[in-house]
């Protein structure tokens, strides 16, 4: 039987919307936000970013002082343009090779996040 948006798909969408909201609600109750320390403007403090920026933090370890922009801006921009041009890269080099590169980037991101998170 062919599915229609209404009612088949709409019901599923609403179901997952409610599940998502409940998941967020549970997370907010179980792990409530904290209030951080007040800013100490004088002392130098090494901050740790949220988990979704840990990969960037890991990358910056390899680029001291003067070359920070390579790790912080250039490499992310290269990855970003790879993502943007995926439809054309796919046409040029085929899906398998594109998928390999994309998979390699994903694994590197996850590994960098894990290492930085555990350090």
């Amino acid at each position, binding site marked *: 039987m062919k599915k229609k948006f209404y009612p088949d798909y709409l019901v599923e969408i609403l179901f997952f919307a409610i599940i998502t909201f409940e998941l967020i609600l549970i*997370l*907010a109750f179980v792990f409530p936000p904290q209030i951080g320390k007040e800013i100490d403007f004088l002392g130098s403090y090494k*901050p*740790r970013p949220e988990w979704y*920026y840990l990969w960037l933090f890991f990358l910056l370890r390899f680029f001291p002082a003067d070359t920070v922009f390579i790790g912080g801006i250039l490499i992310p921009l290269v990855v970003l343009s790879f993502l943007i041009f*995926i439809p054309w890269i*796919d046409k040029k080099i085929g899906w398998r090779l594109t998928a390999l590169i994309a998979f390699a980037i994903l694994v590197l991101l996850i590994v960098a996040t894990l290492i930085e998170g555990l350090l």
Partner: protein
Amino acid sequence: MSIIDWFLDRFRLKTLHRGIFDRDIPEGINYFYCFGGIAFTALLVCIISGLFLSVHYIPSEKEAYQSIIKIHEEVYLGKLIRGLHKWSANVLIVSIVIHSIRVFITKSYRPPRELNWIVGVLIFVVVMLESFTGYLLLWDQKAYWATVVGTNIAGSIPIIGETVLLLIRGDYEVTGKTLIRFYSLHILWFPLIMMILLWAHFHMIKRLGISKPL
């Protein structure tokens, strides 16, 4: 004519919503196709909780930190609303990543949907910028120094670095000016850009349909 019909007619929505509701859904799609919708749900929670937070938050050097304490202690359900805002942002990022992996694996970015893929990537960039600018608003030790480190990256670009840094911070240091700048970006500029991108994203899905599974 019921009141609902009356509204639909006044907005001339009758034909439009029929168009969406009668759409065919391709056979063989699985539950990984839900993550776009899950991301959108998380975004809605983000926006609504953010609207409530913006009523109580004060984006000034002296009062930002105090206003968050106030949200926790005095505002009715304040802590919960902040929790919803924080966690919906996390769920949003995770679900966007899963959604884009799904789109890649099913090759849904192929013509005629290349532009929708690009718009999707841009939405992800805006979400990341939203979380970066939102982080400073806490105006606590972690937020402040994370922004110092984060904006220093922009400052290290050769030649234009200093100009970019001044543009982002509004000053040579991270100050109250930076806070207001980030607040404006976080609640006005980026959401506006996001709305435009999302409209394009959904419009293209509506017109091109859901891609057929392999």
